[in-house]
């Protein structure tokens, strides 16, 4: 990774800070914070799914783990928010490693991997709904205790900066992975496992590192979500909605690219809010639009559009 390669990420950070300084509408700020949290969760999915080709349908498991561990530590054990969020991340990463150790060792791939991850997330959702420490069906409130020391901010623009900094860090980490040996090996595993193994790639080890990193990032997004809304329940933290959004955003924005999750999250949330404003709150309308968009993107991948335009342009220039 070089400074020049990291420049677009710094550019994003500058734009985010400018927006936080000049935008005062709470609706817009709320929209942006939520979108950035989603983008962090999606960046986690992107590491494993976009680069490694392992399509998880259950990243809610990691999102929820990060959210619940951080919230429980703060609420039930009085731990400060900063270490609590860090523990949330670590717990999610460990869960990722544990699920990976079982699923990848068993050799599950493709749709089998997707289904098993979905099952893990659902089991955790049901458990969180039934046990006492998670607050059960009533959910868990983090006590309002405003102050930077508690990672709670009265104004949304401060939180926007926090989310932007964390997303920028996630993108830098993704870029570092992309430009490193582990990144090359991960992409090789995505493209062809047998060929990768023949070239000395330890497939299981590479997948385990990828899922741990991926789960840790998505867990951080979960902890951040809890910190922003100060309330979670099992259907939010472990709900299928986050699994779906975490995988849709990178696929729409460009799986296996550093900026794909952010672009996808902006498109998804923009569409979702846009339809709500136009059509009103009919439940499920945004999902219909997501579905149609997914079909379009699978047919015409966004990240290929610049290439297609360039090819057309060259085609016209050629005799």
């Amino acid at each position, binding site marked *: 990774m070089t400074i020049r390669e990291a420049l677009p990420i710094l550019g994003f950070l500058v734009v985010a800070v400018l927006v936080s300084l000049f935008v005062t509408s709470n609706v817009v700020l709320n929209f942006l914070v939520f979108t950035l949290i989603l983008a962090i969760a999606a960046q986690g999915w992107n590491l494993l799914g976009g680069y490694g080709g392992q399509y998880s349908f259950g990243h809610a498991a990691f999102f929820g783990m990060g959210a619940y561990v951080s919230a429980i530590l703060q609420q039930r054990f009085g731990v400060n928010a900063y270490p609590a969020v860090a523990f949330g991340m670590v717990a999610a990463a460990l869960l990722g490693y544990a699920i990976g150790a079982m699923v990848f060792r068993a050799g599950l791939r493709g749709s089998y991997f997707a289904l098993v991850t979905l099952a893990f997330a659902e089991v955790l959702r049901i458990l969180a709904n039934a046990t006492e420490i998670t607050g059960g069906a009533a959910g868990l409130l983090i006590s309002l205790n405003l102050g930077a020391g508690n990672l709670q901010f009265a104004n949304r623009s401060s939180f926007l900066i926090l989310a932007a900094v964390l997303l920028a860090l996630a993108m830098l980490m993704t870029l570092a992975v992309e430009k490193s*040996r582990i990144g090359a090996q991960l992409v090789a595993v995505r493209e062809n496992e047998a*060929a*990768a*193994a*023949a*070239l000395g790639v330890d497939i299981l080890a590479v997948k385990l590192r990828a899922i741990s990193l991926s789960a840790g990032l998505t867990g951080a997004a979960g902890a951040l979500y809890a910190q922003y809304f100060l309330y979670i329940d099992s259907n939010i933290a472990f709900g299928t909605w986050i699994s779906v959004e975490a995988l849709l955003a990178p696929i729409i924005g460009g799986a296996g690219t550093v900026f794909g999750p952010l672009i996808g999250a902006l498109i998804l949330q923009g569409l979702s809010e846009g339809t709500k404003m136009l059509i009103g709150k009919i439940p499920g309308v945004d999902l219909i639009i997501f579905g149609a968009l997914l079909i379009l993107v699978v047919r015409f991948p966004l990240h290929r559009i610049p290439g297609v335009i360039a090819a057309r342009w060259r085609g016209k220039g050629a005799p």
Partner: protein
Amino acid sequence: MTGQGRDPAFLAVRDLTKRFGGLTAVSDATFDVREGSITGLIGPNGAGKTTLFAMIAGFEQPSAGLVLLDGEEITGRKPHDLAKLGLARTFQIVQPFAGLSVRENIAVGAFLRLAKRRDALALAEEVGQRLGLGPQLDKPAAALTVAGRKRLEVARALATRPRILLLDEVLAGLNPSELRDFLPVLQDIRAGGVTILMIEHVMQAVMSLCEYVHVISGGRIIASGEAAEVVGNPAVIEAYLGHGAAQRLAGHA
């Protein structure tokens, strides 16, 4: 002179057997590959050549028998461990990383011994040039011709800096001029100190490249020796052309 290894059996295969249910694909295969040699493994279709290769390279677990590399037993080890020990293979059906450029494909192999991206890309460039892929380095691997993909298979394997290279029909499907261009590349690899064991159907190539040839038929090694003497062996002629063929050929001569 490159062919004089200190240990005559650099790769030693001993009684290697593979049974798939009731079918014995490879039966008690025993042969040696000398250090620094180009050794051929030939045989009719379905003789068990690729299964034998798969067992040596760790892609199939043998039902019985041993494989030794430079005196060390490597039977049934994982492919990535064998790659680290210096045993690299190519695939009969080429397996490019289709979404990556030719350079990135080769770099995956280079990353085995080099941790830094800059070094891996430099080695990928060097190996790519050596195998005549220079002009294609930045093209997607999916855009290569058959001959180009075969070269890419060899280039990737070579970038792992192997001691022994197992080539599974890298010359199949090449036209005569591509073949003529590729033979010196393989000789050059051997001259660089890499032992080569190759499965091959193109007899012209086997005769001009290989010092030693092992012939497998019906899962058994039926002949071993220098290329010229093996192709005159009656058992080998019969394996290819059918029972009694050697006699009829001798009668016509």
